[in-house]
């Protein structure tokens, strides 16, 4: 039988022979003799045999069906990953292979598509955050927080940072991992148990040696933080205020951090055009004041001209980066999240000024309705008093894990049990509503919850 070829490797036997002739070898194997013999792998890799495209397609489809997507359940999860509608045009544009099969735009003359769209992305991020400069994106919200903390250290020359306990716990963990190597110490600030927001007094009581305070807004509990007061408190200590935005759709309604005294804004851009994809790839964004530009990590695109005087774009201020400054670079990051940033840009272009505000309002309305509906259930109460955007914390009268499991029986993923991140919140669930949650779905969540508690009372009586 004739040997079967690989679709991704074009070489025919005849061509291989011709090429070997040019190189002056008898066979490819001879070429690989450049490796010391004892290092050559003498057995085949223990991997499955090659499949056809058709087989790979069905294999992966089968695997994907062993997951329950948000299409197949009523999902009330958020907590840093938000289920938003992605307009069709987004995927059509990012599926253009001129975009997705290119690399970092090192050669501006044939990369204007990527470069201009990043320039537009940077503009969007500045407009949304109220800041002056943005980079071309970072890996995700968590690592963007870590980079912001390191950046604040470079700017202030100080090595102690404050992280609010209302910052996404996984962002906090990520920041601590990054800080490990830099000799930077940190303190986690408590939250006010009534309001569910950062204790401002805790900042005021700190010593004056802090590089920055990192606070999330809206915070991990969905509560709006008192940014201006925090900004005053941290600036009094000579530190910078870093605001992390995990749900950027909130920026369609909320005053931008740049207008509230913030020095560095970072966040997670997934809400804008990136699918949930089990946690990644997402999109870290970062914006700051112009005076801190040279301490900002990551790629940056700038506007310039070509030889004919025509507007053009290119990567710029690269001397901050690892490929030039090496060990003394602002960060080790090499790429940005190009395609995710493109998706974000297309998404924002489609929504536009009005659409963004409308969608933000819709999210706040859905969450308000969900909140009302759930609080109607006697055994459910609101954990905190602060206003929120599209998520909030409820306290249930009973074991939240059991409650969520029961909901699951009815096809409802009812939220995230918080005990795993906050041991003291052992009856608490973070619930989220977006434009994807219909009124009908929300009502059903309420009804099923009511039923569950009624049943559990019955069971207790028995």
């Amino acid at each position, binding site marked *: 039988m004739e040997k079967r070829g690989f679709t991704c490797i*074009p070489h025919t036997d005849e061509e291989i022979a011709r090429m070997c002739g040019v190189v002056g070898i008898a066979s490819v194997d001879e070429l690989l003799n*450049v490796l010391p013999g004892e290092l050559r792998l003498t057995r085949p890799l223990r991997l499955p045999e090659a499949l056809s495209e058709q087989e790979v397609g069905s294999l992966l489809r089968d695997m994907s069906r062993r997951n329950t*997507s948000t299409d197949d359940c009523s999902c009330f999860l958020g907590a840093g990953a938000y*289920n938003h509608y992605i307009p069709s045009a987004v995927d059509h544009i990012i599926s253009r292979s001129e975009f997705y099969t290119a690399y970092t735009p090192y050669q501006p003359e044939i990369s204007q598509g990527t470069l*201009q769209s990043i320039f537009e992305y940077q503009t969007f991020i500045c407009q949304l955050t109220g800041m002056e400069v943005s980079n071309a994106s970072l890996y995700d919200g968590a690592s963007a927080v870590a980079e912001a903390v390191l950046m604040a250290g470079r700017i202030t020359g100080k090595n102690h940072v404050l992280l609010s306990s209302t910052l996404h716990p996984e962002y906090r963990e990520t920041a601590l991992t990054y800080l490990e190597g830099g000799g930077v110490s940190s303190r986690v600030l408590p939250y006010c148990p009534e309001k569910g927001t950062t204790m401002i007094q805790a900042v005021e009581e700190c010593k004056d040696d802090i590089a920055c305070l990192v606070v999330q807004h809206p915070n991990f509990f969905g509560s*709006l933080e008192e940014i201006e007061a925090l900004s005053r408190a941290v600036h009094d200590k000579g530190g910078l205020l870093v605001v992390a935005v995990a749900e950027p759709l909130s920026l369609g309604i909320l005053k931008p951090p740049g207008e509230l005294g913030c020095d560095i804004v970072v966040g997670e851009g997934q809400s804008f055009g990136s699918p949930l994809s089990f946690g990644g790839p997402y999109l870290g964004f970062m914006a700051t004041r112009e005076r801190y530009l040279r301490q900002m990590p990551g790629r940056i695109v700038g506007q310039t001209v070509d030889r004919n005087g025509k507007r053009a774009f290119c990567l710029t201020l690269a001397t901050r980066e690892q490929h030039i400054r090496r060990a003394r670079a602002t960060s080790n990051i090499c790429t940005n999240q190009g395609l995710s940033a493109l998706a974000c840009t297309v998404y924002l272009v489609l929504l536009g000024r009005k659409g963004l505000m409308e969608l933000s309002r819709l999210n*706040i309305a859905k969450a308000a309705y969900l909140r009302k509906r759930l609080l109607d259930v006697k055994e459910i109460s609101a954990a905190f008093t602060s206003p929120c955007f599209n998520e909030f914390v409820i306290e249930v009268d009973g074991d939240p894990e059991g409650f969520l499991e029961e909901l699951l029986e009815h096809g409802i993923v009812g939220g995230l049990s918080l005990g795993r991140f906050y041991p003291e919140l052992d009856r608490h669930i973070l619930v989220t509503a977006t434009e994807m949650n219909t009124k009908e779905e929300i009502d059903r969540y309420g009804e099923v919850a009511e039923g569950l508690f009624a049943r559990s009372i019955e069971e207790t009586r028995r």
Partner: protein
Amino acid sequence: MEKGRELLIFERSSPGRTGVRPPTADVPEVDLDKVLPKGAVRGDIEGFPEVSELDCVRHFTRLSNENFGVDTGFYPLGSCTMKYNPKVCEDASRLSGFSRLHPYEPEGLCQGALELMHELEGYLAEISGMDAVTLQPAAGAQGELGGMLMIAAYFRDKGEARRKVLIPDTAHGTNPASCRLAGFDVVEVRSSRDGILTPEAIERLMDDGCAALMLTNPNTLGLFEDNIEKIASIVHSKGGFVYCDGANLNALMGVARLGDMGVDLVQFNLHKTFSTPHGGGGPGSGPLGVKKALEPYLPVPRIRKNGDEYSLEFDRERSIGRLKAFYGNFSVMVRAYAYIRLMGAEGLKRVGEMAVLNANYLKERLKGHFHLPHDRTCMHECVFTDRLQRRYGVTTLDIAKRLMDYGFHPPTIYFPLVVDGALMIEPTETESLQTLDEFIEAMKRIAKEAEEDPHLLKNAPHTTGTARVDETRAAREPVLRWTGSPPTNPDHCT
């Protein structure tokens, strides 16, 4: 009329247009002044565009026409492994069971995703000869950082103060930057005249203050580090670890395994070796493989398999913690998994072999036309310089720009730093003999043009929508966002 430059989307805006309409509210609207604190609501977002769906689609379609990708043409960008990205892998990543899966869904609802990740970890371990793999790092550089943090944690546990890491002068910039970020001091090791590390150089520098040697194999000159086994044993005998930057793993797949050469840690760049798209600069994915001794330090969570059930394990005392939120760039993993299943063991071996054959073929046929500083068998890439052309005033930059006129993406230029005026060419295995011959023909013609008409090169490119870009101006007068002012038409263009 001459084709103009595509406007910025902000300059196309017309108040009142929209590209997508959010659904009508089925719940009562809220009075923002009632639900939000005073002063919390923002005013208008100044400058935010308003365009129709067609405006938007046409804008980005036109921009895409200004881009060059692997699907457009040959993209021999050295050390970036710009191979073809099979379309079935794209489709797989978009299956709703993967793309619409929330990371905090209960484990029972994510069994397919966890199974895929668990299997992919196993495949990568087998390919590299490592004992355990984490898929969490978002990119190669984050994998490097994770690896170096693990080494630091290991020595902290042992109570050893090892502050230094040895890095060869041919290394990617991310290597020293990652080491610095992990708290180490970098000691540069000079490569020999042959372009590789010698055991003597390592012997001289390696001591009990050194935590690791971080090398790349094959190195950035495209050369195999012949002395790797000897070098690794020197490092090990002094108690250190050998970290290999897996950027160039493509050359070795199925041919040799880093783990069998004494390497203790390696990161995989799925967007290079495993054919996931580069996305115009990300998202990539940089899983990290380690030997047994370092396994306890891997980032959390780990994926566990009990019988047919998969679960996530968070509680691991010695773990370095997290490198990012959630579990890594999952949809990139789906593509890499699909690619490995498509190629199988035999296909991956062929990848390594054909990548090496292609690079050596190019090297042989360009030799003589361009200066080749290291004339020996190369692996997946070869490095030339502009030395022969410089006597006509033509530089590597000019050669790169002229290649665009012939329809090719230029190679990596001015890297590695140890080669003056480097042109680093990596053809990858997905390119056919015809494509290589066309590229060789173009390079030869450019060599001739350099002699006969250097100006043609100095002013290149001539056929692209954008002529040579003034990068100096961009850096001297940074304009980093659109502010509403029309573009200035500078008079100092040359």
